[in-house]
């Protein structure tokens, strides 16, 4: 409702602004005509560029619209029926918890709130879907409606992504991996709604998710391999002479250990970078409008920003899927390592 009103005001604005823009452009025209065309072609854009640079430089000192948007913050905007359409809410600041000599600041931030919202959305949607499906099944009816969609998603992730990648006895990992998928998905999608922000575009959040994944992978390896787990740390080729074994172990052990950390590290960076990049793109495109200060020029960037937003919507699903798939296949990999 609100958005449609804004869109209509945007259309109205472009209609109203167009004549005045032409009026502004009119005085510039004679000067360009007065000069010889060949020489005018180069200096005129250069001048414009200079002016833009100047303006950008001025504004860049004053406002940075991109970083604050994608960074965490101690305050957040709530939709509010006032002239600005929002209200800044300062989140409480709690005294840091002292652990040993380290001060752990547990004050809630914008991204914490977003994560809690994402978690609550997950709970509400998935639990209500599960309840609805249970009722349908109890009544002997086929799955239907939104709960059917959720069930199809859960089943797809479970049967087509997790179970094939994890391999035999993968059932134990299904709840964790499904939680990863839906939590990341909802956190991603919350970044696309107005007043929202992307918790998964924060390196701390993705790092924690990667650390959890690291422990799940390694513990899965330990439980599946038993004492053979050590062979995933120390490389020990059995079909080589002793000097070969020593050589290979010396070279490969650091590689193996490094490999354990690069995988979660890549997970962390991939999710963070994907979520951040789209938002930076959208904001940069929107910034073009304000840089030029013209609605007419703004049409193309806004169209492109809409395209990027649609891409972002796809990426939100894709990255949740990719994270889940990769963690699943890492678990599958470590469980099928050839132990001797």
């Amino acid at each position: 409702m609100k958005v449609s009103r804004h869109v209509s005001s945007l259309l109205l604005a472009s209609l109203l602004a167009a004549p005045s823009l032409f009026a502004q452009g009119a005085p510039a025209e004679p000067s360009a005509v007065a000069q010889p065309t060949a020489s005018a072609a180069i200096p005129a854009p250069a001048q414009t560029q200079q002016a833009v640079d100047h303006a950008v430089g001025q504004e860049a000192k004053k406002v940075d619209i991109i970083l604050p948007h994608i960074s965490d913050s101690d305050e957040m905007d709530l939709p509010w029926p006032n002239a600005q359409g929002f209200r800044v809410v300062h989140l409480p600041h709690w005294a840091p918890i002292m652990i040993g000599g380290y001060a752990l600041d547990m004050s809630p931030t914008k991204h914490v709130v977003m994560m809690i919202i994402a978690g609550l959305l997950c709970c509400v949607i998935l639990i209500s879907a599960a309840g609805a499906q249970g009722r349908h099944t109890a009544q002997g009816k086929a799955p239907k409606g939104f709960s059917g969609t959720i069930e199809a998603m859960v089943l797809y992730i479970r049967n087509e992504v997790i179970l094939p990648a994890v391999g035999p006895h993968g059932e134990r990992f299904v709840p964790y991996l499904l939680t990863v998928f839906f939590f990341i998905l909802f956190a991603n999608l919350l970044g696309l709604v107005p007043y929202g922000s992307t918790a998964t575009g924060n390196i701390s959040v993705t790092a924690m998710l990667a650390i959890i994944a690291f422990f799940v992978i390694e513990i899965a390896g330990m439980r599946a391999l038993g004492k053979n787990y050590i062979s995933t740390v120390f490389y020990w080729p059995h079909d080589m002479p002793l000097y070969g074994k020593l050589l290979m172990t010396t070279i490969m052990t650091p590689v193996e250990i490094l490999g354990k950390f690069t995988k979660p590290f890549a997970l962390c960076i991939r999710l963070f970078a994907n979520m951040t990049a789209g938002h930076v793109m959208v904001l940069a495109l929107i910034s073009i409008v304000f840089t030029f200060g013209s609605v007419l020029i703004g049409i193309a960037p806004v169209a492109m920003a809409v395209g990027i937003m649609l891409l972002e919507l796809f990426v939100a699903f894709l990255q949740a899927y990719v994270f889940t798939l990769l963690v699943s296949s890492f678990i599958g990999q470590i469980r099928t390592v050839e132990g001797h």
Partner: protein
Amino acid sequence: MLGGGPGIAADRHPPETLMRSSLLRSFALIALSPAALLAQEEASSTRPFMRPDTGLMVWTLIIFVILLFVLSRYAFGPLTRAVQARERSLQEAIDAANADRAAAAALLAEHQAAIEAARTDAQKLIAEGRAVAEKMRADLLEHTRKEQQDMLERARRDIEAEKDKAIAQLRKEAVDLALAGASKVIEQNLDSAKNRQLVESYLASIGSLKVTQ
């Protein structure tokens, strides 16, 4: 101020662009609603972009673990159970349908066999009836022929008997005639007792002959 554009424009042309700038502000709100942060830029409550934040990491861990517990207990478990129950009931329905189909096929085969048997019986009955009729006809024919034969035989015997009787009659007539004739002759020639005696003994021999016949 939101962004640079409207601000600058308003500075340059204050009266005519006032409305435009307010419209632009509303446009900016939809495109960039969280970027309304800009208004509070000076307050600088923004946290450093790339610096890992242990508080946030702990928050992430807490939220994730709670979510994992709640979802696996109240969402994925029931959902999986519902799906499994449905799969089971579907499997049961399919099995039941298969069993029904097999039963129906067996029943059909049975009925077909019964129909086939009935048809064979009917054929047999017809064949039997035809055989009986045939036999009856043959018997009747045979009987008729025999009767005819019998009748013929009897007729022949009757004819034979009549013939014998006629012959005997004829012979007696002949004897009588001969005697009559002879008596006429003898009456004229001989009228002695000796002759008479001779004739009478002859007649007696004929009479005994007749009795023996």
